């Protein structure tokens, strides 16, 4: 019993586990999504570098979903699903009024940057836009598992 050390809660998510966070679709709350992403990633067995990657990537996922929003209405629904081989994350914007006007140069830059960040940090990602909602998703393989 002496010196029985462990990080409790590490790797406590199991295959099939699903965690969902729903919050008002505003940029100032994306920090919540990143917070939950860190906690989930640690519990899915990712190491500290991957955890930082996932925190950043989830923030970008939210930003991609938020682009259809007027930053005042609707919710973001962030979903984490742990499969045998990967952590699948999606972010859906629902109930938001369509964004008015063309994006400015800075927003276009940021959009392109989000895609570059996801390209570098996750294994697959995509974005679907249908009337009424925007959905951005990504997949990060778990090392040492069948993919």
């Amino acid at each position, binding site marked *: 019993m002496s010196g*029985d050390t462990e*990080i*409790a809660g590490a790797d406590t998510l199991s295959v099939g586990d699903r965690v969902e966070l729903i919050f008002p679709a505003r940029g100032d709350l994306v920090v919540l999504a990143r917070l939950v992403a860190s906690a989930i990633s*640690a519990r899915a067995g990712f190491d500290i570098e991957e955890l930082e990657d996932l925190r950043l990537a989830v923030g970008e996922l939210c930003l991609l979903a938020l682009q259809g929003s007027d930053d005042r209405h609707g919710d973001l629904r962030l979903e984490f699903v742990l499969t045998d081989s990967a952590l699948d994350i999606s972010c859906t914007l629902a109930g938001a009024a369509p964004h008015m006007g063309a994006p400015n140069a800075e927003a276009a830059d940021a959009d392109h940057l989000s895609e570059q960040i996801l390209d570098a940090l996750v294994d697959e990602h995509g974005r679907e836009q249908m009337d009424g909602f925007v959905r951005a998703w990504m997949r990060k393989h778990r090392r040492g598992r069948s993919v």
Partner: protein
Amino acid sequence: MEQYFQIEERSDGEIPVVAVVGEIDVATAPQLRECLHTVMARGEATVVLDLLGVTFLDSTALGVLVGALKRCRELGGELHVVVSDARIMKIFEITGLNKVFPIVESLDALSAP
């Protein structure tokens, strides 16, 4: 972000000391329960529980402590609890357990005459 939890038993003095560091909650309390059981199964009726490094405590943790206290007293011993953090002390106070457990602020306070 991680939930840190570490438990250590020191039996160098006369009374065994179980020291916990981190968060004791529904996820980690079972390990504390097991450790206390193991110590008492050796015949120790009096145990010191050092919570100086504990940053969070929930009702499950308190339930384990109450169970261990009952067992110590049944064996004719005592469960001494060491707490100094105001937040942790508050949890004992709001549940009235500060009047049930012998609580001291430091390990020194136990060895003092």
